[in-house]
């Protein structure tokens, strides 16, 4: 078998050009390198978007309400159908209803040294949507202190604008948490006074939050308006920059914090670039496959006379096919291995560089890239096998 292969190698190699083989190998290497890089870039891109270390917890919650226009003036409630539809969207993980207080309320300080009074309204949201971890966040009928969560924005507004203009002292979060406020609720039967205390500050929802249990109780007790439909919801999403989310909100005339979704436009551009790189990679690969199959075809054509003579002398089609596969397929494996190694090295370097920019991607190449390499080994095997089979059969007839 060894002697047979050696002689065949002599016959076929002298007939077919080494330079041509080299050129075909270079063409295929370049194309494979490009397609594997495209797959790896896509994997990195997904990594950057979805991995935990790259995510910002604040950006994952969006408060959504209807856009107020002249047409829907006075009717900005969200219907159950609209909320259900929102829940069904793939980019929405959870929807929490923000319930507004339907009674007039005000808060004021007990202390005369710190005279403070303001009319206020509350909102409540399911506990799962709250980012303040406090043991005091509960209320049951009969308890006299209502826990509240204030937006950081309020405190900033107070400290840097209001206190300065009113000649009042600035307050830290800790101090505010110690103050017990007087909460006045206006009822048909007159004013009811309760106590309230800020238990935490949040960046997530820009309204004064109270526990849902209190909201339900107070709305039942004191509501002046019987509307039950909510006007605002908070959604949890993995990716606030998702262009599909932004498109959905726009199509349903909903609005949210534009600052959190502004990346969607850049994302659309990056998506397009990645898609184009896929298309280019695929086209290049198709060309590379064509080049390689043409190379095999040309090699077989250039040693057509030799192959014909071998067949005349009694070489079986299987013997020739085996030999030609042994000759043409191993360079393919070499090319794929080399391409995977190069992409691996580039990935390592890229990950190290991105780390310096506080972006985290895996240091090793993705399973998708390896899978693609395996897939192409299979495709190349098939291209080699069938091209050889086809031409041997052709020479046999």
């Amino acid at each position, binding site marked *: 078998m060894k002697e*047979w292969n050696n*002689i065949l190698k002599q*016959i076929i190699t002298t*007939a077919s050009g080494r330079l041509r083989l080299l050129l075909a190998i270079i063409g295929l290497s370049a194309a494979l390198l490009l397609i594997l890089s495209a797959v790896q870039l896509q994997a990195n891109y997904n990594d950057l978007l979805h991995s935990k270390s790259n995510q910002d917890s604040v950006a994952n919650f969006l408060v959504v309400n209807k856009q107020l226009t002249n047409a829907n003036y006075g009717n900005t409630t969200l219907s159950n159908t609209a909320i259900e539809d929102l829940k069904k969207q793939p980019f929405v993980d959870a929807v929490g209803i923000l319930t507004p207080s339907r009674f007039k309320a005000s808060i004021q300080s007990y202390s005369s040294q710190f005279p403070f009074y303001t009319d206020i309204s509350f909102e409540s949201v399911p506990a799962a949507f709250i980012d303040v971890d406090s043991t005091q966040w509960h209320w049951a009928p009969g308890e006299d202190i209502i826990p509240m969560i204030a937006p950081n924005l309020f405190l900033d507004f107070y400290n840097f604008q209001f206190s300065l203009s009113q000649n009042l002292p600035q307050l830290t979060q800790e101090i505010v948490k110690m103050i017990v406020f007087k909460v006045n609720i206006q009822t048909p039967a007159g004013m009811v006074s309760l106590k309230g205390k800020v238990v935490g500050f949040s960046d997530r929802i820009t309204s004064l939050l109270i526990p849902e249990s209190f909201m339900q109780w107070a709305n039942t007790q004191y509501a002046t308006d019987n509307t039950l439909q909510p006007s605002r919801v908070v959604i949890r999403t993995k990716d606030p920059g998702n262009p599909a989310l932004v498109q959905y909100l726009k199509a349903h005339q909903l609005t949210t914090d534009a600052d959190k979704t502004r990346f969607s436009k850049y994302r659309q551009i990056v998506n397009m670039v990645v898609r184009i790189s896929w298309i280019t990679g695929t086209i290049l690969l198709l060309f590379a496959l064509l080049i390689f199959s043409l190379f095999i075809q040309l090699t077989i054509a250039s040693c057509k006379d030799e192959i014909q003579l071998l*067949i*005349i002398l*009694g*070489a079986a089609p299987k013997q020739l096919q085996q030999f030609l596969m042994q000759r043409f397929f191993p360079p393919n494996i070499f090319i794929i291995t080399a391409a995977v190694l190069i992409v691996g090295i580039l990935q390592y370097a890229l990950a190290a560089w991105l780390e310096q920019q506080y972006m985290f991607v895996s240091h090793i190449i993705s399973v998708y890239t390896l899978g693609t390499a395996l897939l192409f080994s299979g495709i190349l095997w098939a291209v080699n096998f069938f091209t050889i089979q086809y031409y041997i*059969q052709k020479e046999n007839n």
Partner: protein
Amino acid sequence: MMHLHIENLVPVPLKPNLQTRNSDIWLQDVEFTSGHFIKIKAPSGSGKTTFIHLLYHLRNDYEGSIYWNNQEQKQYHAAQLAILRQQNISIIFQDLRLFQNITARENIELKRVMQQPYYPSSVIDDMAEQLGIAKILNQRTGICSYGEQQRIAIIRALMQPFNWLLMDEPFSHLDHDNTAKATALIAEECNKRKAGFILTDLDEDTHFTYHQTLQL
């Protein structure tokens, strides 16, 4: 044992010419006896090479039938034909059909290792010695003289097992002395295998003791 039998055989392109001629082969029913040395005498243009090529299944453009072991040759598919050529039929072409870019030894070795080797490789040296081409064995075939190439082709044909050896003017470029050496070797190898041969040539000759001489 490998039976060879032809029935009403005629190559389509030569049919008009051959129909009017008296031939022992064309359009006849002939049984070639296994192990016999058969000479086919053929003047130019009578289809000598065509006949050898038909028997070796290099062409398909014929009417009538060729039976190898009672199986019509046209029914052999590529893999079966390869086995036939590796195990049962060997050939010396008139135009030799050697690979010009490899050495004489490689040309012969190719046929030795194409199947389970019939002989060890040392036999190549023995035969080359016998035919006087031992010195050129490692030369590129393309630069050997035609006479040398003819002897390379003869040794190549004798490297494999066979029941029938087909020869088309195998000594055309050999002098008397070299022809005698070649015929001795061929006869010896055929006898060793209990094989027969079909040799086509232009004229009468006394190279071998033929069992049968036919006119094409």
